[in-house]
């Protein structure tokens, strides 16, 4: 009985960690920002929830607190992704050329034009400043 719980918990821990790994890989491989947000938010949410479930199997007395952490995570993580995606779209981050259709830009052209932020700069060198 004890070892069955241990095995289940360990398996859930490993599954969660591998989902996190897929998330990191997706973050690195996806071509543009919106797809990266998608890869980041889904896999980390499920991965962390699985790790929490695994910890709950290993230590059942921590269950309530782990449940609370999972619940908070389930509401805060998508929220920040949505707000960030909206801000990026308003800031005029360009999409990958494979993008088929953009209904949001068609319906609200003025919100993008109004933004004065120039965040799409592509300087990625950690160089000396002039």
């Amino acid at each position, binding site marked *: 009985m004890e070892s069955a719980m241990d095995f289940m918990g360990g398996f859930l821990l490993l599954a969660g960690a591998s989902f996190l790994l897929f998330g990191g890989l997706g973050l690195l491989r996806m071509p543009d920002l919106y797809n990266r947000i998608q890869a980041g938010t*889904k896999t980390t949410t499920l991965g962390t929830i699985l790790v929490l479930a695994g910890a709950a199997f290993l230590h059942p007395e921590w269950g309530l607190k782990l449940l609370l952490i999972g619940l908070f995570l389930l509401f805060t993580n998508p929220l920040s992704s949505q707000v960030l995606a909206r801000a990026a779209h308003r800031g005029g981050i360009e999409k990958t050329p494979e993008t088929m259709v953009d209904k949001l830009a068609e319906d609200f052209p003025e919100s993008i034009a109004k933004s004065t932020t120039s965040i799409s700069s592509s300087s990625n060198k950690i160089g000396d400043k002039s």
Partner: protein
Amino acid sequence: MYDYDTTNKQASGEWLLDSNLHAEKKLKHSMRDRVVLFATLLLFWLMLNGTLALDSLIIGALVSFSITLLFCSGLSFFTEFRATPQAFAAGIFYYIYFFKELIKSNFKLAAIVLNPSLPIKPGIVKVRTKLKSKMGRLMLANSITLTPGTLTMEIDGEWIYVHCVTVESTDIDEATAKIVAGFESYLEVMYG
């Protein structure tokens, strides 16, 4: 039509000054909201402490009451929840469906990421929702974000703008049936 502007009015507290006919109804409704908020906060307090001892119960009631008093326009998970047996059943089925979709979405994403050719076809499509209550709409948006290849970007009235990793159709009704309908059928029973 859903009045989009009410949220922002309420956020700045202006609606307290409105002296229209709805004021009484709003106040009555808000009394129920406050009780629900108080109960939810007390539940969370007990979960945080992990004990049912009398002293923590008293302190928790005190803290929850003062938060309810200070921040009376707060929402809770059950604010607009219809307390009927069907709603509770729908809630349970909703969570089962939600976790199924979450796991499915992760496997789908992992397949895309591990595929060397990266088969994506991204785009932003527009779908329609019937939900009116705030909590229902928030939960719908969060569910869409966490399910296969979709990310909510903006809600405006009855329209939701969704970014998809692989666009299957750009037609509004077809996309609605594919993306929204599964969750909406449960959330409509729960929140309306």
